[in-house]
């Protein structure tokens, strides 16, 4: 009968539902934290610079980081299974070199691009086989993959190869304007967003995706439940390798040339972006959307430091400091939820 509630009861209910929300979405909290940081950075930069938030600049953040976004999606799969993939930067560089030399040899891009993806997938498969069937630690196995890809890139050519293929350059050069106010998006950006969407859907709604979370949460339990652990872990590395191959296509389009020294240290940037995006390195918890936010935070830092005009070495220091903050925050969250159980 009582349609009006007393104030304390309502407060208690609100607090209760908030707690329920927090516990049910505990794994989303780091993502919210990353999003909050991103918003704070955008607002802070806008207040500080005054003319920061222009459509042009925001559009360019997606353009400049589309390859990193694609790498981060692949890396998320591997980290969710509790592994790590150090090879992505080198694989991206190698597939770029391979693609550029194939294009130079006269092959059409419709053949070259799939070949690049296949090469990435193959290296990922090799790493996965080492990890799954020979009990090699992911760190060491992907390190071998990194050395291999880095060296193969130099085998292709020691100098940079210019890309003149029109369809590859179209990926980057085309500006699809949205509205008339300067917003634009390139095919590479659309490609990256499609990869994010595909990754998110794959993880959230398919049997493979749910198995990835199960394996990362507790591999032993997943195996006892009869889940295909071996296949899933293998596939996670293949996904990461394929993403690295695709990133090779995008990065080649971005720079208009392939160079064997491209992408040194990219694997660390990728891991940092994924961790900032709230994926736990122990596996089993994290989201592709979070990784996207992590990449955007990374892109924002780079842009802000460019804007400030200070030394570029501050980029790395800021990324390192931010990584530290996020890891400590995650640590606190994990410790809290462990205590509550």
């Amino acid at each position, binding site marked *: 009968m009582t349609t009006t509630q007393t104030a304390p009861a309502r407060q208690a209910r609100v607090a209760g539902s908030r707690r329920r929300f927090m516990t049910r979405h505990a794994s989303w909290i780091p993502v919210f934290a990353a999003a909050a940081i991103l918003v704070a950075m955008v607002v802070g930069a806008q207040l500080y610079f005054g003319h920061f938030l222009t459509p042009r600049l925001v559009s360019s953040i997606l353009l400049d980081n589309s390859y990193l976004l694609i790498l981060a999606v692949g890396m998320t799969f591997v980290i969710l299974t509790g592994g790590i993939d150090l090879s992505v930067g080198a694989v991206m560089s190698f597939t770029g070199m391979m693609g550029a030399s194939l294009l130079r040899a006269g092959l059409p891009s419709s053949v070259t691009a799939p070949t690049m993806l296949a090469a990435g997938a193959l290296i990922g498969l090799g790493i996965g086989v080492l990890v799954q069937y*020979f009990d090699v630690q992911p760190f060491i196995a992907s390190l071998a993959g990194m050395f291999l890809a880095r060296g193969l890139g130099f085998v292709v050519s020691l100098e940079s190869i210019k890309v003149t293929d029109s369809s590859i350059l179209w990926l980057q050069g085309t500006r699809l304007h949205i509205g008339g106010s300067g917003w634009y998006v390139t095919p590479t950006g659309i490609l990256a967003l499609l990869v994010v969407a595909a990754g998110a859907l794959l993880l959230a709604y398919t049997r493979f995706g749910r198995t990835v979370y199960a394996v990362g949460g507790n591999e032993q339990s997943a195996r006892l439940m009869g889940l295909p652990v071996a296949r899933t872990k293998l596939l996670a590395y293949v996904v990461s390798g394929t993403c690295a191959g695709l990133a090779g296509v995008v990065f080649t389009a971005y720079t208009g040339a392939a160079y064997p020294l491209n992408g040194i240290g990219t694997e660390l940037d990728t891991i940092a972006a994924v961790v900032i995006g709230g994926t736990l390195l122990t596996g089993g918890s994290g989201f592709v959307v979070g990784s996207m936010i992590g990449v955007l935070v990374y892109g924002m830092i780079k842009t802000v430091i460019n804007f400030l005009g200070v*030394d570029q*070495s501050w980029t790395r220091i800021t990324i390192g400091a931010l*990584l530290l903050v996020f890891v400590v925050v995650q640590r606190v969250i994990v410790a809290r939820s462990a205590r509550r159980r």
Partner: protein
Amino acid sequence: MSAVVKHRLFWPLVVLLALILLNTVSRPSFVSITVHDGRLYGSLIDVLRNSAPLMLVALGMTLVIATRGIDLSVGAIMAVSGAVALTIIQDSGDAANPAVLAVAIGTAVGAGLVCGLWNGFLVAVLGIQPIIATLVLMLAGRGIALLITGGFITTINSDPYKFMAQGYVLGLPFAFYVSLAAIAVVALVERRTALGMLTEAVGINPEASRLAGVRARGIIWGAYAASGLLAGFAGILYSSNIMAADANAAGLYIELDAILAVVLGGTSLAGGTFSIAGTVVGVFTIQTLKSTITFLGVPPAVTPVFMAAVVVVVVLVQSRRFRRWVGLLAASLRARSPRRPDRAEVAS
């Protein structure tokens, strides 16, 4: 015989000797050592001299890996240490003054120690995963080194400083004595006290060792501090070798070489039992491999392919499943050829 084959150092040593043999066959001058002005010269001496920074870093890495950790920041710490030392020497304006050098080296090694303590604090006190905790400094460290040098490559001209990496004492390179001293100190502290055993206990099961009364926190912290300190010394040796502080190139990828050396030496990345002698063999193997590649006329850029091949072979040899496959293969081969000479010998 089987005791020899089963010894932990057997396969690492076989790999090293095979490498040296391969070099000697293709280039007999590889093992020859000549004497000039009472100094020894030769490829093997070069290996001893050039391996010193890697040796220091790998020794520290062994301790960290024994506690189930990993230290990715050693290369960045080397860059910081070299930058600190050379900036102090350059600013003093008196590059040959021993007091200035002592202050510079002391401060640089101290900076390495502080970096190591920071890593240890993150891992042991805050409980952050070692890969990420040290990734923070790996990313930020080179930026800090660039700030110290002001974005330039600091170069100095100082004969005493140069001596450390390029000088000779009693016919052998001074850098080799530095690695010997480091090996001796680490071996004595770890193996002549209970510290080594406690470190292994922490690496095998941190929780059980804590319940057994081992101060796991202090031991883990100490391992990272030691790694940072040794990386600080390695940074001095590196900068002394090229007489410049290059924040981008100093110790680049040395963390990977060091981890590889430790794994080659038979220490498992899963923590626990570690072997200092194995690490020493691993370091010499990697250094010999590098000089082999240079000698074979392969462009240095392609070196990673060889490294990848070595890593894959080593981890496969260490893998239980692979060994079983080889065993099964050998058994099936034996079964298919029943008339083997050794059977005839048994019959006679």
